[in-house]
């Protein structure tokens, strides 16, 4: 039995310890916001947070995730109002949308570690997330907007 803590909820899963975390999230726990893209950590569609780090769940075995805090796009915020989710909606970033849960989960780590990223910082953080629709200019713009929302929110509190 594998115990997984996903979005602050504990799950006992009768699965093999070498099952990729992505399989457990999508097929066992029905958290389908995280997407399967390449299966070999090359595209970023499957990014989730493992103790806050943006791991690629397609190559991360559930054995590595045991005892750690897993956060998926469904658990990034309580009301889908993380600054990135607000910015994404404000300027309609997605085209087909398939890669965007991974994009947002990667960007969330960037904003946690750097509240005012430059274009270079965004490149450094996001170069591993591929968007075949080519929404990169809007992704960049939305990250800047989200950073501003986050800074203003921090000033108020």
């Amino acid at each position, binding site marked *: 039995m594998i115990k997984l803590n996903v979005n602050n909820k504990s799950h006992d899963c009768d699965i093999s310890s070498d099952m990729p975390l992505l399989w457990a999230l999508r097929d066992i726990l029905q958290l389908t916001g995280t997407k399967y893209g390449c299966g070999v*950590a090359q595209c970023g569609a499957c*990014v989730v947070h493992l103790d806050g780090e*943006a791991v*690629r769940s397609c*190559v*991360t075995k559930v054995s590595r995730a045991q005892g750690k805090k897993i956060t998926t796009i469904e658990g990034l915020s309580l009301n889908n109002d993380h600054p990135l989710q607000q910015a994404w909606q404000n300027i309609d970033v997605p085209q087909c949308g398939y890669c965007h849960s991974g994009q947002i989960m990667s960007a969330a780590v960037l904003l946690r570690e*750097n509240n005012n990223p430059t274009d270079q910082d965004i490149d450094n*953080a996001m*170069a*591993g997330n591929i968007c075949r629709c080519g929404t990169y200019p809007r992704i960049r713009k939305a990250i800047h907007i989200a950073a501003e929302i986050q800074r203003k929110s921090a000033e108020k509190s």
Partner: protein
Amino acid sequence: MLRKKSGSIAAVILVMITLAAFGFSNTYSPDKAYKDIPTPLVKDSIASVKAFEKVYTVLMSPRCVNCHPIGDIPLQGDDSHIHKMFPKRGADGKGLYAMKCANCHQLENTTGPHAPPGAPNWHLPPANMKMVFQGKSAHDLAKQLVDLKQNGNKNMKQLLEHADDQLVLAGWKPAQGHSMPPMSHSEFKKAWTAWIKNGAYAPAK
């Protein structure tokens, strides 16, 4: 009054000498480094250089050089091309933001072609001591490996032990489609040990 002032100056000079002595003790001293070798050191420059020639072929293999690049982006594959996605070194060598090494590189190789190789604590050398192998001559690399300011502050004992470091050992467990280093780990360790125990001499070129 004058005596009191002289006493203060003497105390200041004494403190400065003490601080300087501690400062110098951090600089590289071969004698100090060799002192830590568990068995008696027999200096034999010919045997040492000959052993390093073997060591050098391993250190310049893709399994070693790919994570000791000139730039801040690791290399990939048997042709040592720039790592796809351009992950950056970061201050600690473990990557940046959402592009940290361990986000993709697991505790062991991921199965399948083009899947990431893995080992615990996958990382590059840190930004303040890059320990570059790529493009180094045998002479320069040997000199670098025994320089505390360029080798991760390792003395000779620690250098000997480094042959069994988990990331060094990972070189002999390549991911699917990657070549092995040019000799077995035991042959490498034998040559590495012979190089160091015979004096860690650098080849002429």
